[in-house]
Structures are given as C-alpha cells and as structure tokens.
C-alpha cells in the first residue's frame, strides 16, 4: 500500500520529537535512533490502522513506547539499574557535545523507574495532555498524574534542588532521611 504524502510528511515532522523522547527514555543516542527507525517502519507497515485526522504524533509515540518496553523487558536488569551502573555508563559514554550539558540531569532521569520517566517526559517535555499521555501509556489519567508527581519528587532529591521554603526538610534532615535508605 503506497504511503500517502500527507501521512509521510506528518511522520517526518514527528521525528525530532520522537528522537527526543527516545533519547530521554533510553539515555543513548544510537539506540534511540534505532528505536525511531523501527517505529517508522512499524508505522508504515501498519498504516491502515492509523485513523486519518487523529494525532499522528501520539500514534507514533505509542508505537515507540511499546517497542522500548518490549526491549526493556529483555534488558530488565540493565535498565532497572539498582546499583547505578547504567547511569554510570551514561556518564562515560562519548556523546555529541550538544548532549553534554545535560549529563547530570540525564543521569538523574535514568535513575527513575521507567513508568515515572516516560510520564514525566510526555507531560513535561513532549507537551501531551495528561489524557493523551494516559492513552499513550495505556493507563488511567490519575496514574499518569501520580507518576509525574513521584518523578518530580525523586528528581528534586537526586539533583538536590533547593527551592521555596515549602520544599520541606532542610539539608541536614534530608541527609538523615537519605542515610535511612531513602525512607
């Protein structure tokens, strides 16, 4: 079945954002680009299941997310990163200079559970609504909201961002909490 030019253009214009999503998920540019390529090939092979007039970008994000998840299941131990070795490998990875400045942030992002990471990126960076993110992740809207909140809390901890006075315990208290196993 020939690919409609409009659909092809819609796919191409989604690529930059798909790459950003894939890099945020996998923490690796090469792996991300492979994911994007596989996503496009799957999308083209299944183009008849796309309903014209609906959100092409959301459809492609759903495919990419599913591909990443099935890959993640295979590599569970690596990505769960209980000992921080995956985050460590990100630091030593040769990266394009444009990606260097976000190293610390990426390393923190890599320590989040995948559910929380994807929810935060979809809502906080890709610009999807909670409803769209819920559809992409095939879960309830409330689940997305709570994942985003937990992701923000954890990132704030990891990056030790000090904010307004309502942030909570001071440094010393947080150090004690951290020493207690993060509870």
């Amino acid at each position, binding site marked *: 079945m*020939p*690919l409609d030019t409009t659909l*092809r253009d819609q*796919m*191409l214009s989604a*690529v*930059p*954002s798909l*790459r*950003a*999503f894939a*890099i*945020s998920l996998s923490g690796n540019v090469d792996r991300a*680009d492979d994911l*994007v*390529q596989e996503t*496009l090939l799957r999308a*083209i092979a299944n183009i008849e299941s796309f309903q014209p007039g609906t959100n092409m970008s959301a459809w492609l994000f759903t495919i990419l997310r599913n591909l990443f998840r099935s890959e993640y299941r295979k590599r569970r131990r690596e990505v769960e990163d209980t000992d921080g070795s995956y985050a460590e490998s990100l630091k030593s990875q040769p990266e394009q200079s*444009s*990606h260097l400045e*976000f190293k610390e*942030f*990426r390393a923190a*992002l890599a320590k989040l559970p995948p559910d929380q990471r994807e929810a*935060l*990126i979809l809502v*906080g*960076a*890709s610009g999807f609504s909670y409803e769209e993110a819920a559809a992409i992740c095939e879960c309830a809207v409330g689940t997305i909201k709570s994942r985003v909140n*937990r992701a*923000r*809390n954890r*990132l*704030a901890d990891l*990056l030790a*961002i*000090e*904010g*307004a*006075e*309502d*942030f*909570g*315990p001071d440094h010393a208290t947080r150090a004690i*909490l951290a020493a207690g196993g*993060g*509870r």
Partner: protein
Amino acid sequence: MQTDVNQRNKTKGRLGRDVQSKIGQQLRSMYDNVVSEGVPDRFSEMLRQLDQQQAQPDQKDKEVN
C-alpha cells in the same frame, strides 16, 4: 513500597513551585535541544527509498534487502 512512598510524601510535603519549574525547565531544554537537531538524513532518506520502492514495484524485490 506504596507505604514507603506515602510515608515519604508525608515527610517531605509537596514540591514548591520553584523546584517544579526548575525541573520543568531543565527537562524541556534537554528535550528541545534534541528537537532542534531536526530530522537526521537517515530518516528522510529511509522514507524516500520506501517511496521509490512503491513507485517502482518491479524493483521492490531487488531493494528489499
């Protein structure tokens, strides 16, 4: 696990707006940094080749691999 998370949130309270916006800014600038790279040739080239295959079905078998 769930209890731990609840416990923790009670202890910590909600994140302040400053913290939320700092995280949001970092996340978006990291993301937009990649978006601004545009479409790498690899992808436009791939779609162009697929188009050609469809336009010339007789060559399809040769180009599949």
